[in-house]
């Protein structure tokens, strides 16, 4: 089978072309060692099947980002039969810069001039024949979106692949051409793509210097002999300048600009979206709307308007997935009247997902013998555990749909633009705001959204912080603890009404502290550069969105079926069997996990919430919370936790521990696939250790207040002083280290 690679700038329509060419055969993975998407698929309309590899979007073949290294290594080492260079016809100048670099490699190249429809709509024209003559490779005008010219493109690429091609450069008649040919001669005789390697050596490319030290010495000598005027011997600048110079000289005549130069639609949209005053409010409204559609129980604010669907059982059943009876009972038990609004799409789908998994469980119960271990394994273990995770799929996908729309439309780049200033102080760039905000919904799509961050280290840090933003599944824990506080009924009872709010604020505050700590101790203190394109706004493509969602769904389902299923079965076993497991099922009080809880109780002792008689129960609930965070509540219910042994300090410490510790298995699995390998282990350690420390501090500070307010005050002052002193000390040390490094 022959293999073509798609290469091009971000936002050039490469993914749309890939989807058009490969249809349903596409599959997505990661490039080995890095979290960069690797898309592969098959094109079937030629005599031979063609494997298509979609390289990540890049601006250059320099070695500074993982995307660039992956693309360049693929073209050089894997030697695709043809490289299809996708070029945005509406933005020719910058797109051709990459083309001039690809052309230097010994590989057949075909240029796909994409977005011809948009170009025509703007009134501009490109003389394709002239462009083809200048570049020396076939150029085909296409519209990937409208599927125009794509089959012709593939035919031409197929023809091109039959003949080998040696690299050519636009630097040929420039001031550096002499050096290039000499360095070329100095490279090993059997090396392929000598031209490419020679040019990169002259640019001072780190990867090439490592690979060809001898040739580099010659290059260095030649460069020293001929310092290019105006650039002070900076050949990286010289080469870039010559490339752009060639492009603007030779290709300006290729483009015939229409005379009207007015304000485009995209400009008009942008004027509103990044408005000095309105940009941030608009962004907040958009985010509120997204969350409302995904998580709201009452989409149209019916309760606030005094409207209700509770007296219509059919409607309630429809909207809550057959939950009318249960809801009615629950409301009556609480002495309330059932009051329901029409839920949001996300909640609606989640209810039905829950209904389906419940139904599946009942179905198995109906024909499997009751009370046996294997019935329990299937119903409680697998269906119960995986079902809990699966019920989040609709909301995760919906959230992700909105992220994809924001990305595809070009708005995400503007969010980064708007928020960057605020985030840079914490060592993060503006784009990190989206994953963090998503964290309030669910950590899984939050971590997936971190992929929009370009810098790998920043991605790892953002994933690490995602748990600080209390997700939807943690909310029931806070609700439960709030009722416990109310039940204590001390003078601090007023805390129950603001408890949930306090926990959310605590999460944000600690996230800021964590980010600052990571910034201080990170080896790479500098924030990644923010030199990025702000693409023109355009309507997102339905097909691309669906392809995107399908990828995420597949990933998530595979995870649910493997890591999550395995871990839930293990937890099921631990909580349903005693040490003499051959004797069959036991109640959770007599299970292995209860004994583990007794041991863990001492581990958590310094945190103050396992000191009571039922302390082991909180330890167990924390462990079962790893399946899904709601399980903390259900475990407490099963075990009959009263909360009477907890003090206010203990409640806050318990909440803090559950907020900052390992998230559920689904999120851990997502973190693993979205982080770098090393980053993931650091993240796991971070979650383990930081939650313990935070919980510890919170308990002892609050506990001192419980003993006497002035002891608490002294301790608080001491801690603040310690933080300030250590921060000052660290800042000074880092300053000194930096000045030493530059000196």
């Amino acid at each position, binding site marked *: 089978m022959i293999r073509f690679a798609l290469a091009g700038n971000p936002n050039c329509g490469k993914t749309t072309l890939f989807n058009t060419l490969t249809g349903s055969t596409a599959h997505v993975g990661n490039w080995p060692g890095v979290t960069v998407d690797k898309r592969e698929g098959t094109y079937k309309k030629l005599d031979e099947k063609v494997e298509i590899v979609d390289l990540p979007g890049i*601006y*250059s073949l*320099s070695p*500074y980002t993982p995307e660039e290294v992956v693309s360049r290594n693929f073209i050089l080492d894997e030697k695709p039969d043809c490289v299809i260079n996708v070029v945005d016809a509406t*933005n*020719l*100048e*910058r797109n051709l*810069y990459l083309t001039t670099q690809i052309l230097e490699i010994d590989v057949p190249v075909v240029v796909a001039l994409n977005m011809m429809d948009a170009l025509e709509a703007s009134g501009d024209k490109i003389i394709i024949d002239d462009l083809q003559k200048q570049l020396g490779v076939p150029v085909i005008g296409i519209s990937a979106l409208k599927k125009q010219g794509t089959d012709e493109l593939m035919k031409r690429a197929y023809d091109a692949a039959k003949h080998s091609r040696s690299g050519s450069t636009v630097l040929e008649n420039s001031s550096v051409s002499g050096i290039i040919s000499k360095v070329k001669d100095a490279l090993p005789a059997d090396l392929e793509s000598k031209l490419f390697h020679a040019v990169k050596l002259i640019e001072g490319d780190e990867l090439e210097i490592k690979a060809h030290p001898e040739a580099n010495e010659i290059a260095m000598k030649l460069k020293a002999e001929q310092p290019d005027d*105006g650039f002070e011997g900076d050949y*990286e*600048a010289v080469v*870039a*300048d010559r490339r*752009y*110079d060639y492009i603007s000289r030779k290709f300006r005549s290729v483009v015939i600009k229409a005379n009207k130069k007015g304000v485009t639609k995209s400009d008009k949209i942008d004027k509103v979206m*990044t*408005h*000095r*005053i309105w*940009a*941030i409010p608009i962004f907040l409204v958009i985010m509120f709307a997204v969350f409302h559609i995904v998580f709201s129980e009452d989409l149209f604010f019916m309760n606030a308007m005094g409207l209700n669907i509770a007296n219509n059982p059919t409607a309630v059943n429809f909207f809550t997935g057959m939950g009318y009876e249960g809801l009615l009972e629950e409301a009556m038990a609480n002495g309330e009247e059932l009051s329901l609004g029409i839920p949001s799409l996300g909640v609606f789908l989640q209810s039905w997902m829950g209904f389906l998994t419940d139904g599946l469980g009942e179905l198995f119960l109906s024909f499997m013998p009751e009370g046996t271990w294997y019935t329990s394994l299937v119903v409680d273990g697998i269906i119960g555990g995986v079902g809990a995770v699966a019920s989040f799929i609709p909301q995760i996908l919906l959230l992700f749909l909105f992220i994809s729309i924001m990305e595809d439309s070009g708005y995400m*780049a503007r969010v*980064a*633009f*708007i*928020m*960057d*200033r*605020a985030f*840079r102080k914490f060592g993060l760039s503006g784009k990190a705001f989206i994953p963090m905000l998503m964290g309030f919904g669910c950590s899984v799509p939050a971590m997936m959204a971190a992929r929009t961050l370009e810098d790998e280290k920043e991605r790892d840090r953002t994933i690490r912080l995602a748990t600080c933003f209390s997700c939807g599944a943690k909310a029931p824990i806070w609700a439960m603890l709030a009722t416990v506080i109310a039940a204590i009924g001390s003078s601090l009872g007023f805390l129950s009404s603001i408890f949930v709010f306090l926990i959310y604020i605590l999460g944000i505050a600690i996230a800021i502290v964590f980010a600052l700590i990571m910034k201080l101790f990170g080896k790479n203190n500098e924030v990644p*550069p*923010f*030199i*990025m*394109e*702000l*693409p*023109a706004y355009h309507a997102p493509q339905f097909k691309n969105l669906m392809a995107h969602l399908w990828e995420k769904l597949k990933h998530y389902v595979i995870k649910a079926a493997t890591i999550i299923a395995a871990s839930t079965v293990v937890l099921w076993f631990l909580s349903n069997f005693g040490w003499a497991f051959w004797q069959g099922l036991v109640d959770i009080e007599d299970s292995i996990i209860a004994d583990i809880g007794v041991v863990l109780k001492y581990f958590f002792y310094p945190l103050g919430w396992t000191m009571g008689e039922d302390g082991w129960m909180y330890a167990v609930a924390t462990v079962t919370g790893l399946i899904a965070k709601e399980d903390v509540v259900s475990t407490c219910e099963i075990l009959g936790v009263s909360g009477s042994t907890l003090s206010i300090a203990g409640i806050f410490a318990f909440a803090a521990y559950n907020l900052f510790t390992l998230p559920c298995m689904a999120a851990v699995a997502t973190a693993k696939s979205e982080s770098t390998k090393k980053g993931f282990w650091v993240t796991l350690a971070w979650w383990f250790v930081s939650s313990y420390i935070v919980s510890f501090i919170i308990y002892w500070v609050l506990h001192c207040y419980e003993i006497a307010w002035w002891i608490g005050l002294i301790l608080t002052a001491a801690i603040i002083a310690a933080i300030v002193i250590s921060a000052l000390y660290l800042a000074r040390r880092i300053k000194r280290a930096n000045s030493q490094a530059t000196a």
Partner: protein
Amino acid sequence: MEKYLNEFAVGETGIVKKITADGKIKRRLFDMGVTPNVEILLRKVAPLGDPLEVTIRGYELSLRKSEAQNILMEVQK
């Protein structure tokens, strides 16, 4: 008149004279088309005062002031 890009006012246009940055930032600027003799228009400043949005080679580029202070410009008109 010469000044750095971060000192430009919105709507001002200039020609790049020199890039004084190093390493990754320099390379990134080159790759995005910020090379000597190219024309740059400062279009917008983000709501919080940073980063900047410029028009260059027919597209919109965003960069921070700290990055723009590496770009020496000749002001036009």
